[in-house]
C-alpha cells in the first residue's frame, strides 16, 4: 500500500518538471519579457526593474533562469509578477482558482450525480425505450459544444427570469447574511454547473452503462441470482461495485475536461474564475499570469489523477495485492 502511494508520488516529479519546463520555454519563446512592458511604464522606477531582474535572474543564462524559476514556483509559490494588476501572480490567481474550483466541483456533482443512476437504469433496462432515451441524451450531451450550451442556458435565463443572467453573486449580496449569501451563490451556480457538467455526465453515463452490462453477465452475478437474492441487491451490491472501478480512474482524467469546459462557460456566463482571468491576461499580454494559471491548473489535474489512483487502490483490493 505504502509503496504504491510512494510510486505514484515519485511519478509526479518528472511530470511537474516537464510542465514547468514547458511553461518556461513558452514564456521565453514569446517576444520580450514582462520587464519590457514595465520599462514603458513611468510609474515603475529603473531600480525596481533592476531588482526584479536579479530576483528572477533574467540576467543569467537560460538553464540557471529555469532553476530559479523552479525554485520560485515550487518553494515559494511565486509565479512571477502581474504587470496588469501590479500584484504577484499567485495573489491574482488565487481567488479565480477558488471560483473555478467551486464551478468544477458543482459541475462534477451534476456529472456524477446524474450519470451513475442513469447509467445503472439504462443498463438494467437494456434495449428498452428508457435505455434508448438515455443513450440519446448522452449523445446530445457529448456533442453539444459548451459555448453553445452556455449560450442556450443564458437565453433560457433571460427569457424566463428564473435564474440570474451570468455572474457569481447578486449586487447586494454583501449586505445579506451568510445563509442568504450561500443561497444566492447556489442560485447563480445552477446554470453554469449544468453547462459544465453535461458533457462529462454523458460520457460517464455511457461508461457506466457499458461497464455494468459487461459485469451483469459475470459468473458471480449469476451466482448471486442463483442464491435467490432480490434483483435490486444483485445489481446494487454485487454488480455496481465492480462496474464503478473503471470510472474511478476516469475521475482524474475528467478533471481536465471540467477545467477546459469551465473555461468557456466562465467566459460566456461571466463567472469570475481562472479561465476569464487567463483570457484577460492573454489579451493584455500579461504572460506570467497566463503561465501561472497553466501551471496551477495542471497542478490541479495532476493531483486529481493522483487522487484517482489512490482511490482506486483503496477501492480495488487486487491492485493492493499486486504491489504488496
Amino acid at each position: 500500500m505504502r509503496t504504491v502511494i510512494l510510486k505514484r508520488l515519485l511519478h509526479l516529479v518528472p511530470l511537474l518538471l516537464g510542465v514547468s519546463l514547458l511553461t518556461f520555454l513558452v514564456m521565453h519563446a514569446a517576444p520580450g519579457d514582462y520587464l519590457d512592458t514595465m520599462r514603458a511604464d513611468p510609474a515603475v522606477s529603473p531600480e525596481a526593474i533592476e531588482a526584479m531582474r536579479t530576483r528572477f535572474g533574467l540576467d543569467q543564462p537560460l538553464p540557471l533562469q529555469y532553476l530559479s524559476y523552479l525554485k520560485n514556483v515550487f518553494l515559494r509559490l511565486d509565479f512571477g509578477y502581474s504587470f496588469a494588476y501590479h500584484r504577484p501572480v499567485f495573489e491574482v490567481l488565487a481567488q479565480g482558482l477558488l471560483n473555478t474550483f467551486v464551478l468544477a466541483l458543482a459541475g462534477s456533482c451534476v456529472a456524477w450525480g446524474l450519470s451513475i443512476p442513469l447509467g445503472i437504469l439504462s443498463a438494467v433496462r437494456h434495449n428498452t425505450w428508457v435505455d434508448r432515451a438515455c443513450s440519446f441524451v448522452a449523445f446530445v450531451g457529448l456533442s453539444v459544444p459548451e459555448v453553445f450550451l452556455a449560450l442556450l442556458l443564458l437565453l433560457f435565463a433571460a427569457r424566463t427570469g428564473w435564474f440570474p443572467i451570468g455572474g457569481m453573486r447578486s449586487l447586494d449580496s454583501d449586505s445579506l447574511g451568510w445563509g442568504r449569501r450561500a443561497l444566492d451563490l447556489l442560485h447563480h451556480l445552477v446554470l453554469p454547473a449544468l453547462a459544465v457538467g453535461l458533457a462529462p455526465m454523458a460520457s460517464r453515463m455511457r461508461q457506466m452503462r457499458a461497464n455494468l452490462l459487461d459485469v451483469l453477465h459475470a459468473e458471480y452475478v449469476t451466482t448471486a441470482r442463483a442464491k435467490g437474492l432480490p434483483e435490486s441487491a444483485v445489481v446494487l451490491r454485487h454488480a455496481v461495485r465492480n462496474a464503478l472501478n473503471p470510472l474511478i480512474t476516469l475521475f482524474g482524467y475528467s478533471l481536465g475536461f471540467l477545467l477546459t469546459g469551465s473555461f468557456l462557460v466562465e467566459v460566456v456566463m461571466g463567472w469570475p474564475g481562472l479561465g476569464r482571468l487567463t483570457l484577460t491576461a492573454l489579451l493584455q499580454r500579461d504572460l506570467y499570469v497566463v503561465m501561472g494559471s497553466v501551471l496551477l491548473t495542471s497542478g490541479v489535474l495532476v493531483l486529481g489523477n493522483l487522487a484517482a489512483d489512490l482511490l482506486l487502490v483503496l477501492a480495488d483490493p487486487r491492485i493492493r495485492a499486486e504491489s504488496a
Partner: protein
Amino acid sequence: MSAPGGERAAGRGLRLSLVARVCAGVLAVLYLGAAGADFLAPYPYDALDADHPFHPPTPIHLRDAAGRLRGPFVYATDTGRLSGGRLEYRPRPAGRCPVRLLVRGEPYRWLGCVPSRLHLFGAEPPGRVYLLGTDQFGRDQFSRLVFGARVSLSVGLVGVLISFLLGMLVGGAAGYFGGWVDTLAMRSTEVIMSVPALYLILALRAVFPITLPSPQVYLLTVVILACVYWASLARVVRGMVLSLRTREYVLAARAVGAGPLRILARHVLPNTFSFLVVAATVSVPGYILGEVALSYLGVGIQEPYASWGNMLRQAQNVSYLQSYPWVLAPGVAIFVAVMAFNFLGDGLRDALDPRRVAEARR
C-alpha cells in the same frame, strides 16, 4: 484470436449502421457546401447591408396576399424600426420579389481562378433572402455560415492530418524501438496531457501576437491544435504497435528474415489503419471545437472573415441573444457537425472491430 480489423473490413465490405450512413451523408453535404461556398452562398461573407441589421430569417412565400399561387418569393423590407428595444422589419406589400435558382449575383472566382457570377439561389432585387437572418452589420448569416464552414470544418481535417503524422511518427518509434525512446516519448505525451487542453492552447497562442492576418491565424490555430492533440494519438499508436509486434504473423515475418522497416511498413502499420480511421474520425470534433473556442474568445479568426466561433461572439451580448435568437445559428451548425462525427466514429468503430476498439476507448 480475431483477425485484425483491416482484413475483416476488406473481406466483407464495410457495413455501417443506418445512423452512421446518414451522418456520413450529412458530413458530405457540409463539406461539399463549404467547398462550394461561393456558389452556395447568395452573398459574399463580408457584404454589409446597413439598412438591415438583425433582420430575422426571411420567410419564403408561395402564395400572395390574395391567396394566389405565385411560386417562391420574398417581400422586400423597409429599414428597421426600433420597437420595445428590438429592431422590427415590415414587409412592403408591393415588394414581392421572386426567389430563383441559379441566379447571377456578386462575382467570385471558382477555386480562386475561374470567374463566375452564378449562385445557387437568390432573390430579385430589391428583395433579399436571408435564410438565417442577418447579424449586427446586416451581413447574411447563412452566407457567413457557409463561408465559416470552410474554416471551421477544414481545421478538423488539416489538424488531424498533422497530428496523425506526429502521432504515428512518435508513437510508432516509441512502440517499436522501446527503451529510452519510448520513455522519452511517453513522458512528453504525459506532460502535454497533464495540462488542461484549452489552457495549453491559450498558452501556446500567447507566444504569438494577438492580432495577425487571418491566413496566418488559421495556420497558427491548426498547428497549435495539432501540437496539443497529437499526444493521445501517439499513445494509441504506441499501444497498437506494442500489441502487434508480438503477433504471430509479425514473428513469422521476422523469422523469414524481414527487416524492421519492412515489418513496420508491410505488417504492422497496415493493421493499425482501421483503428486509426476510427481514432481520426472521433478526434475531428476536438479540432472543430478548438477553433470555435479560440475564435469565440477573440484570439482566432478575426472579422470580417467568418468562422463558426467568431460568428457566435455576437451572442455574447445577452440583449442581442434575447431579441435576435438566430445569432445562435452557428451553434446549431457546430452541434450538427460534431454530432455527425461522433455518430460516424461510433458506427465505424462497430463496423471495423467492435471488441478491440472498445477496449482502447476512453
